[in-house]
């Protein structure tokens, strides 16, 4: 009988068989990467806003404290997006006819809310409470990043479960003294881990078993 295959098919056949293993491995790896990619988590992506509000200017430049606008952060689960009134406190005086702020003034006139786009947006089955974190030494910067350097705001962390667990499993690596909660670019005075452990004792932070309960975040 005549040969069915050309000589080269031998090499080809082997390559396909053993190559397949690597291809599959690569695909798996790719998916895992995609799962954590900025495309999926939307981290570092600037969101469109009705008013081009610059944290860089207000926090970095003017040095406003976070709590001037986000008033509920110490008392409520929700840090609160400031009412138009808060903007107008200043902007009825300064920049009071800048076209970029027209949306704000319009809102104040018509009583229609400014439709801000959420930047740090957890899935709806996750229950995050700002107040307890802020009261127990988790700085704004720890999750929101250097807001004072964001001309337009973006989400700095992945906000994925493993990211949350990093801190819930070893808070000592992240806690800071209460006076520095809103500080941007905070540098620990000394060894973070030691400070962290001291603070945990001070705040009597629950043990990590409790911090990693499912119901701590999911209900």
């Amino acid at each position, binding site marked *: 009988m005549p040969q069915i295959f050309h000589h080269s098919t031998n090499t080809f056949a082997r390559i396909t068989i053993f190559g397949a293993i690597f291809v599959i491995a690569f695909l798996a790896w790719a998916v895992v990467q995609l799962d954590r990619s900025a495309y999926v988590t939307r981290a570092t992506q600037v969101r469109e806003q009705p008013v081009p509000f610059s944290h860089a200017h207000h926090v970095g430049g003017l040095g406003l404290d976070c709590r001037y606008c986000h008033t509920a952060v110490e008392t409520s689960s929700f840090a609160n997006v400031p009412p138009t009134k808060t903007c107008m406190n200043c902007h009825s005086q300064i920049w009071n006819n800048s076209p970029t702020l027209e949306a704000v003034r319009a809102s104040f006139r018509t009583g229609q809310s400014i439709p801000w786009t959420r930047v740090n947006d957890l899935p709806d089955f996750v229950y995050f409470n700002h107040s307890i974190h802020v009261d127990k030494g988790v700085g704004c910067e720890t999750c929101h990043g250097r807001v004072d350097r964001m001309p337009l705001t973006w989400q700095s962390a992945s906000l994925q479960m493993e990211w949350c667990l990093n801190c819930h499993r070893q808070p000592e690596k992240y806690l800071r003294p209460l006076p520095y909660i809103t500080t941007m670019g905070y540098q620990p005075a000394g060894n973070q881990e030691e400070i962290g452990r001291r603070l945990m004792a001070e705040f009597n932070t629950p043990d990590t*078993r409790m911090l990693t309960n499912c119901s701590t975040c999911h209900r």
Partner: protein
Amino acid sequence: MSDSQKDLDLAAVRGALGARLDGARGREYWRSLDELAATPEFREMIEREFPRQAIGWSEDEDPVEGRRNFLKLMGASLALAGLSACTRQPNEQIAPYIRQPEELIPGRPLFFATAATLSGVASGVLVESHEGRPTKIEGNPEHPATLGACDAFSQASVLQLYDPDRSQALTLNGEIESWGAFFGALREALALQKTKNGAGLRILTGTITSPTMASQLAAVQKLFPASKWHQWEPAGAHQERAGARLAFGQTFNTYYNLANANVVVSLDSDFLASGPASLRYARQFAARRRVSGGQTEMNRLYVAEPTPTPTGSKADHRLPLRSGQIELFAGALATALGVAQGPKSGANADIYKWVGPIASDLKKNKGACLVIAGEYQPPAVHALAHAMNAALDNVGKTVFYTDPIEANPVDQIASLQDLVKDLDAGAVDLLLIVGGNPAFDSPVELGMRDRLKKAKLRVRLGLYDDETSEVCQWQLPETHYLETWGDARAFDGTVTIQQPLIQPLYNGRSPLEVLQMLTEAPDARAYDIVRNYWAAQYAGAGFEAWWRRAVHDGVAAGTALALRTPSIQGANIRANAEEPRLGGTFEAIFRPDPTIYDGRFANNGWLQELPKPITKLTWDNAAIMSLGDAFRLGVKTADMVELTYQGWKLRAPVWVQPGQIDGAITLHLGYGRTRAGRVGTGFGFNPYGLRTSNALWSSVGLEARKTTGSYLFATTQNEHMLDSERHIIHSAGIEEFRKNPEVIQESAESPPRSLTLFPEWKYPGYAWGMAIDLNSCTGCGACVVACQAENNIAVVGKDQVRRGRAMHWLRVDSYYKGEPTKPEIYNQPVPCMQCENAPCELVCPVQATAHSSEGLNDMVYNRCVGTRYCSNNCPYKVRRFNFYLYSDFETPSLKLLHNPDVTVRSRGVMEKCTYCVQRINAAKIDAEKQSRQVRDGEIQTACQATCPTEAIIFGNVNDPNSRVSKMKAGPLNYSLLAELNTRPRTTYLAQLRNPNPEFEA
């Protein structure tokens, strides 16, 4: 709550909506309601209405996304959550306030006091409000009628508020009109009436206790002297008032104090579960039954009743009697007490056998006992009860009298017949029907449905466009009590100022505002009407303070009616010697339905799906009859019978009920609605079709015969008999218990903690646990609705319930023990047991359910893949599975109802009770912020908070001083199915009974 928040002007939006509606005319409008709800205008309306009160994730490019994200709702995303992080978060938006009200902190609920009314009588409630959305009703601890507890009706009223089937627009003959147009028409009609002193003006209301409304009606009366005000309350306290008149010659209001009663005799009164003060009574009654520490004194309850009720289930002696025999029994008892002259023996030997021991028991407890006449028993029984209480000198100790709480306690049947007379005479030009549903629920022989049409101009103010609206030209949307100002009296006359929690959703007006239209100041707003009235009442300075306090507390100080001590007109007290003869017929017994009452709650899914006490029937009523009668008729449960009463006919499905007395067929009112809404229309059958003026509550002469066909009931429990081997309910007689306090422990088999191969898991810090006192539980079911409201539990509908797919996290099982004709009845609430060795956790392949360090059996909905293995392996069967997409993610108004702190579950995931973990976490966070421990009682689970008898106690079992620890430490404590060594954190306290030793069964 500051009024500034209330001045939202929605005119513009309504304009848009109205314009839209004008497009769709007549009936077509109704068909197009859904479609309407989906239109941008409607969403805008809802959304513009709320952002100022609620932080709402509002519109978004994709309308579906937009609707979904409108509120803190995750549900639908759950379906996608499968791909977890692989799904990107959609763009969500935040609509902040313009000016933020200072007392409101976004993310933290506020509570406001107001009152829900039933048949006109108030029960005080606290309403939880999330950024302006009322989401949950709790009892008001300050209020005498509720004492912090809450019944199923009030719990479910919040769903009624958001019901998309509520009357949404003012209509004239089914076509949308404006309030202006109506006002014009009304003025015209009134002008005419003015000329004839209002001779043609009739107002028909339900029972009214509101002082403000009373004054308005008086004012109207002054303006139109010849006008008439009629009242009709289908399940009102007519008999009670008539009884008082019979006994005292004038109308009095009666209430009791069970805290002082050692012995209670109920003459067919379900005082623990129905009636305006039932919550208070239940609390007091349970307190006198609780055995703890050395205290082993229990009160004793005798109940004579035809159909098993929650009260009957608590009885130490339950005496099955036909409703018609109660009078005979009361007479015999009165005779035995020497209060009346009656025969000492009679045809019905049982009765005379019973009265002896009961009478001596009562005599032994003079001044500390109580005879309660059922509110549906004839006047004579009430009179006898008054006489006996007087003779036992209980007045002022366990029985109290005040002037009636109603504005005008007329004989409502007479009042209705009077109206009918005028209608027939064609004397009624303008008939204003405020609330109620007379076309549906008035006595059948009056044929109200057609008679009403004889009034020339018919105006109906109602929550729903129902059977009555159908026969009226004008249908005015009524505000829900959570939408407006008002006031009402409680059982003892205490006034609550009702305050609104939210702007009217559907452009409704309150009864006060509509009645106001008849007066000189037609356009006053509810707030001013109520405030001005009380300002007028309030003598002296400091009204503002008084008003603010009254509104804040939900109780107006010093408004309880003064106590009276009326004297018995002995002549009227006669002991009937003859019981009505059945003569081959049956006795018809009419009762308001345990869950949808007189039909007003027919469109309320929570109440429809709430299993009725004892029968566990949902979505239906039935012809409840005894096993004997069923046998004689040759029928079984779900067979159809034809009932005939004085020529009126009705087909109804049979329900064979253990404990039902032979010869009586009990029919629950309220079903068979023809125009209730999408939820309530067409379920069950309508007993009003047999109910005549002369037999409102019961009468012999009902004929029943088997007919063809059978019916599909939806019950949540099929098997009720307790067998001796399965130790599910532990109980003992009090004497037995006194002799041997360990009697329960000995009968309960529970393996020692050391009996395990595994190292112990330690639970330092908090260890949450629950104790349920079966001795207190009446099985009323309020806890079930409370749980449903708190935890966003979906309504699944009759068909799914029938397929065993009801979603209640907490169920109340009922069991019968002993002979089927007169069984002992036991109630057992079953939430998740939070087992320390949870069988469900072991078998979950994805760790969607696992144990928390505080001993909670956590359930992570968004991790669940839905193998349902956990449910199979749960010996208590407390896990519920979303077989379909049960949660409503579409209806805009229903989204406002959701509790933002609890995930709304989507299709294909398992769900269950976690001790209201959202409340636990909230309390813990607050405590930790103050660097302290959570205090005992600081966390109340929804079921616990609402329970009238405090049967459910939750707390930290690591704290030996917590209430729950103390209860668990007691000798009555036992674990359900302890032999499985699941180590439940939820345990039960065994039930005790206190039978009268003189009683030989």
